[in-house]
């Protein structure tokens, strides 16, 4: 009986862990901006995407793979969703669950985009995907997609 209870206990805990959902903070640009300029020895990969953006969704598995490989190093990935705030529960959360995203997701709710696009990078037109990779003062920005190999070739030499 004790064994059965123990088994049941483990079964419930396991399901609990599996069902544990990633919580997605909603940030405005003011609260998000410091995440673009953290001065320490960690490599930060910040990817701007949205669930409806076809090339973004296509490159997400490569970002996930990179995150899985480097998450135990001095490395931090943030997937910054530009989905509408009204779509958080109806679209973004189900998408994260369905695709089993493990990297941290943030919803950036900042509709006055002209006010902040240049603050991410002056060369950014506003099209997504777009990615900032930085470590201290070393900084690489790209508007457009990455392959896994490209990502790793940038990240690997930066890891301390």
């Amino acid at each position, binding site marked *: 009986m004790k064994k059965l209870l123990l088994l049941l206990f483990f079964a419930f805990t396991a399901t609990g862990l599996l069902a544990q959902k990633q919580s997605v903070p909603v940030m405005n640009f003011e609260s998000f901006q410091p995440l673009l300029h953290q001065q320490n020895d960690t490599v930060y990969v910040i990817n701007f995407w949205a669930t*409806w953006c076809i*090339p973004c969704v296509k490159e997400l598995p490569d970002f996930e793979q990179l995150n899985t490989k480097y998450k135990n190093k001095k490395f931090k990935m943030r997937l910054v969703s530009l989905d509408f705030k009204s779509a958080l529960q109806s679209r973004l959360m189900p998408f994260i669950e369905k695709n089993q995203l493990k990297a941290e997701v943030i919803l950036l709710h900042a509709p006055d*985009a*002209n006010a902040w696009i*240049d603050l991410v990078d002056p060369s950014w*037109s*506003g099209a*997504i995907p777009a990615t900032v990779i930085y470590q201290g003062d070393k900084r690489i920005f790209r508007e457009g997609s990455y392959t896994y190999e490209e990502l790793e070739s940038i990240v690997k030499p930066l890891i301390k």
Partner: protein
Amino acid sequence: MKQILSILSLVLFFSLGSFAQGYQVGDKAADFKLLNVDGKMVSMADYPDAKGFIVIFTCNHCPYSIAYEDRKIALAKKFAPLGYPVIAINPNDSTLVEADSYSNMQIRAKEKGFPYPYLLDADQSVFKRFGATRTPHVYLLNKEAGDLVVRYIGAIDNNYEDANAATEKYVESAVANLMAGKQPDPAFTKAIGCTIKVKK
């Protein structure tokens, strides 16, 4: 000879550079001739009385384009009678995004009753010439001494999610400025949008 070569390479460099970047505010825009959803070809030359054009690169599938659909219709209804008609152009390759195919454009135009032409940039040359990078992306042209001069490039307003929360209506105030003989301010804005889907 060396000098000529270096000048030539400089000229080539700059012409390639400007091609890659498309139009800047102040540049003259060339006309186009593209297929409308009604089956007819449309050029800006078809509007001899226009004082200018609100050219909007847009499409069916992009949520930002969809979020702005009613605002595009409102712009057309307000400014076409004042001499600045809206011309919408879909720059996407439909083999990459089926929702942006010509027949789906026709369906969407009918559903929403677009009061403006909705053209297909079939060979994707027009958006490249303009330098559009995303949808929606607006180019406001003003007719000046027979030329069409780019006077504003950017977003429709400053809130893609909620029209009522927009505090800056960039295109509306840009057209109002042109009609008052002034330059738009700002003349250039950025916005989040969908990348234009180009066949590789």
